């Protein structure tokens, strides 16, 4: 094992060119045994397998993203780096643990396998990856650079697929792909997770019994989003529609791909005006603001702000003075690394509301 001073880890490394899955699997087992023999404090983590399919050219960037996910990380990561024109497999297996361990304590090991493969391997990637994952642990597949054929090849051996609907140029296509995968696998969509704080705040706003009635009276929903994050906005509308029983119909685009989408949902009591606006000033993916209005004269909007979401409430009642209030809902921005970490954590949970929200969002882009 060689100590890496910068990351303060001790890494056991094996590498081989023109190798086979069986040789890689044997190497990981040997590295784990060597680590444990060197220091009995080292124990293998057994949480989840993550299989990443990436373009070799951009594999460093993905490795950096995975390094920054923090406390939520898989126990074994298998990275399949796709290199054009390659016909053989090269592999590097690493078993890493903290360089310093306390007597009597234990230290978990992280296992990473980098397999460099060619495009021709992708259609049968399962035959390469299957021997490399820990049996009986859930396996999640993440293919941030496309390669749908690789994901399809792994459908039979994985239980979860991680995707980010905001990274697809065609939002309708992205949502349809998510729906297709959701038929067989549990889908963790980072676009959905970007809407989580907003969903929590909307749910909290209407939680007091005195204002819950207003859920039936919603007359307008307006969402501002990063130009590339229409999927997050559509899923948020889809969530409201599916939870509140709205009848949805396709939105109409205005102002090109980065412009607005408008439409109407039919609620039991009245129509709900829907507006999704791209906000070109937004520098990070996700949502910028949500505004809700009800037929009872209440209006509520949340916007990204310092230290959390800035909430503004206004209530207009005939014969009364308008009531206006502002406050901050505390919360730190999770950042892209935090979102990815949350995606990995969510892989082991089950959210029953994503599926219906996705179905409803698909209606909006039909």
């Amino acid at each position, binding site marked *: 094992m060689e100590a890496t001073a910068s990351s303060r880890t001790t890494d056991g490394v094996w590498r081989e060119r023109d190798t086979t899955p069986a040789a890689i699997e044997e190497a990981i087992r040997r590295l784990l045994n060597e680590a444990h023999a060197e220091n009995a404090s080292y*124990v*293998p*983590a*057994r*949480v989840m397998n993550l299989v990443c399919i990436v373009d070799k050219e951009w594999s460093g960037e993905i490795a950096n993203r995975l390094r920054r996910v923090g*406390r*939520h*990380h898989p*126990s074994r990561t298998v990275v399949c780096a796709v290199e054009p024109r390659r016909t053989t497999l090269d592999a590097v297996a690493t078993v890493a643990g903290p360089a310093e361990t306390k007597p*009597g*304590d*234990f230290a*978990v090991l992280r296992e990473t396998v980098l397999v460099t493969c060619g495009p021709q391997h992708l259609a049968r990637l399962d035959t390469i990856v299957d021997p490399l994952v820990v049996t009986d642990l859930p396996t999640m597949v993440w293919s941030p650079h496309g390669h749908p054929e690789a994901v399809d090849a792994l459908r039979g051996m994985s239980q979860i697929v991680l995707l980010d609907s905001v990274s697809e140029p065609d939002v309708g296509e992205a949502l349809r792909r998510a729906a297709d995968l959701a038929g067989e696998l549990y889908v963790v969509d980072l676009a959905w997770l970007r809407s989580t*704080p907003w*969903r*929590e*705040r*909307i*749910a*909290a*706003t*209407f*939680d*007091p*019994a*005195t204002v*819950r*009635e207003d*859920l*039936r009276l919603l007359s307008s929903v307006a969402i501002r989003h990063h130009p590339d994050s229409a999927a997050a906005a559509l899923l948020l509308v889809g969530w*409201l529609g599916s*939870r*509140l029983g709205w009848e949805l119909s396709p939105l109409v685009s205005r102002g090109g791909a980065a412009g607005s989408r408008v439409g109407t949902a039919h609620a039991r009591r009245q129509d709900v005006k829907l507006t999704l606006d791209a906000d070109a000033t937004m520098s990070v993916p996700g949502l910028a603001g949500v505004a809700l209005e009800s037929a009872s004269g209440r209006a509520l909007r949340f916007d990204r702000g*310092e*230290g*959390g979401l800035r*909430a503004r*409430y206004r209530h207009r009642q005939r014969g009364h003075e308008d*009531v206006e*209030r502002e*406050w*901050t*809902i*505390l*919360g*730190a921005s999770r950042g892209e690394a935090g979102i990815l970490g949350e995606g990995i*954590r969510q892989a082991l*949970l089950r*959210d*029953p*509301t*994503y599926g219906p929200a996705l179905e409803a969002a698909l209606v909006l882009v039909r």
Partner: protein
Amino acid sequence: MSAADAENPLVKGLERLPVHPTVLVIFGATGDLAKRKLLPALYNLAHEGALPERFHLIGVSRRDKANEDFAGEADKAIRSFSRREPDDKVLSALLAEVKYVPGTFDDPAVYTALKTELDAFDAAAGQPLNRAFYLSTAPEFFPVIVEALGTAGLTESAGQSEVRVIIEKPFGTTLAEAQDLNARVLSVLDESQVFRIDHYLGKETVQNMLAFRFANSMFEPLFNRNYIDNVQITAAEDIGIGTRAGYYDHAGALRDLVQNHMLQLLTLLCMEPPVDFSADEVRSEKVKVLHSIRPPHRDEVFRAQYGPGTAAGEDVAGYLQEDGVPAGSHTETYAALRLHVENWRWAGVPFYLRTGKRLARKVTEIAVTFKPVPHLAFGEEGSVGVRPNQLILTMQPNEGVSLSLGAKIPGNRMRIRPVNMEFLYGTAFMSQSPEAYERLIMDAMRGDATLFTRNDEVEAQWRICDPVVRRWEDEPEQLVQYPAGSQGPPEASELLLGDHVWRAI
């Protein structure tokens, strides 16, 4: 059914359920607990977006200072003790509107000023906010504060808001004190408004015991007198009393750990499956266990004090030589008990509890020893032989479950020795657990009392320990000394039955 009566359709699937807007008032806001635990816990909840959408903090303490000064102190405390590096923007937003009310806890003017601040927050929100009063003070102020809150009309709910009072431990130092405190608190508040903290219950490790027992069918059929020989519960600390002589010499090991934490572990291990995991169902099952335990007889308890010794290679002082300990103190730093849970499930199974300071190692664990196999077909020559199975639930430092099994030693003879099947929670959940106080503060604000001690539970715990406390106080004796850094006093083995032995710490 109107929409107001129906469930909120938007909460399904959310991990963080909505909490009604709340003002948290910390009495003793400049104290050590507030600085080290409560304020950092609040910051971490804010960071994660877990606090109610409207949240305000008011500190109450004796020292005179301005709101800004208190905010500055809170900022410093959070930066020093938070489990994560604070985000400046979130921290600044959390403390932007913090208020501070100075004064002594028996001064009605404090409560008048407090009411003014609380009413102002309600007015700004346009709705009555929930009020949670956290009593992080010396125990003698608990009834004083509760009664003063009642007199000032601050314990009455307005509209749909709730008033809750969170009371730190210790909840009394004797049965009589606990009963008196309960009576005084409940003369002002309803039991549903009272949240008695035993921070041990907020630990993931302790809650995992419920999951272990009631989410796994393989162990439950064995958890009874037919299969279990004895149970040992150990809470060992390797440190001494440090700077806490003032508190510790009045408390002692029995009050400090046995009466609360260790009896809680015992109830979680022994309780029947609750009908559901609502607060009262869980707590009622725990109370039944406590009611099944009679106070231990004289020969079922043992106490001792640590003497000088060696810890981590260093010479360390004995208890009587520690700063602040009165000469000739009879306070025990080690306590061991043999208890019996007299019900159908557990009758005849001895439960051994031991706790001590300055022992060889820090460990909290429950060791369940199963009965030996009825007939041994294997020869034992040349090996340690077949040993009864042991199930070890470790709470700290390495939370996990270990099961000892008999296995054949490789070779051409049939020789058996015990091997361990180990499970470490840290290898299966590679995430940082929240601090116990984060969970408990949220539960109290949400009104979920499952992880808090009910009035009858506290009194039932005291009914077991109070006769021992009184006997030890009435009959001071020269305590057995055990060397610091050791396994504890060998004399503690005298309360073990038959061939039972203490597990190595």
